[in-house]
């Protein structure tokens, strides 16, 4: 009985080993995601001063009926884009998402976000070690943060 238990435990260990992530997940940036002001979130992400760049394009509705689902597109034409960070400046927690790109992907993302109220959508791109940003104002009829 004991041998069977031991063997099962060993199998369990082997299964866990085989299922190990092939990548290490960086710690979820709680300070940034829970910050209530965009500047605090940016500081927690170590985003230094970001110059405005029209090589970052944001496609989003001028007027969103339902703040619970606002579809946005973000595209960067900056060379060597490494990451894209999206903020909805008047959300209770403005930091929405951070995307880190590796090889083999165009620095673009289309997704759906929640907006609490009419506000600026701000996108910060890190490219070749420098930060750039662009923003777009979206009016929201009914807030979507609950």
């Amino acid at each position, binding site marked *: 009985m004991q041998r069977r238990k031991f063997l099962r435990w060993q199998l369990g260990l082997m299964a866990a080993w085989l299922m190990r992530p092939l990548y290490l997940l960086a710690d*979820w940036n709680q300070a940034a995601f829970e910050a209530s002001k965009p500047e605090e979130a940016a500081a927690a992400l170590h985003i230094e001063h970001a110059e405005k760049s029209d090589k970052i394009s944001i496609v989003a509705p001028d007027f969103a009926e339902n703040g619970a689902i606002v579809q946005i597109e973000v595209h960067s034409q900056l060379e060597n884009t490494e990451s894209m960070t999206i903020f909805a400046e008047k959300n209770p*927690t403005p930091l929405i*998402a951070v995307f*880190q790109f*590796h090889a*083999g992907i165009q620095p673009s993302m289309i997704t*759906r976000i*929640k907006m609490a109220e009419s506000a600026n959508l701000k996108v910060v791109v890190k490219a070749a070690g420098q930060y750039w940003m662009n923003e777009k104002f979206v009016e929201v009829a009914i807030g979507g943060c609950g």
Partner: protein
Amino acid sequence: MADLFKIRAQKKEDGLTEVRVLMSHPMETGRRKNDFDEVIPAHFIQYVTVTLNDNPVFEAQWGTGVAKNPYLTFYLTGAKVGDMLCITWHDNLNKKNSSVVPVI
């Protein structure tokens, strides 16, 4: 909605592979109240990782601001038909889900 995780990775004529993803997840902010006026606890995807043939393509960290039943579209450069695309998410309650599809 059932535990769905839909991915479609389609190579286009311009050489890019359009990947469209729909994940089933409540993405609760932790600010909503139910009908009994109790706060519904936060339950949201924190990490998304995407690999192509086991090579990392991108990682994302999300907060509660991503909409319920997250939708994503992105474009791979240089993927070939038959390459295997794997998308995994992990949430704040330690749940996860993974789906693998071939590029068509």
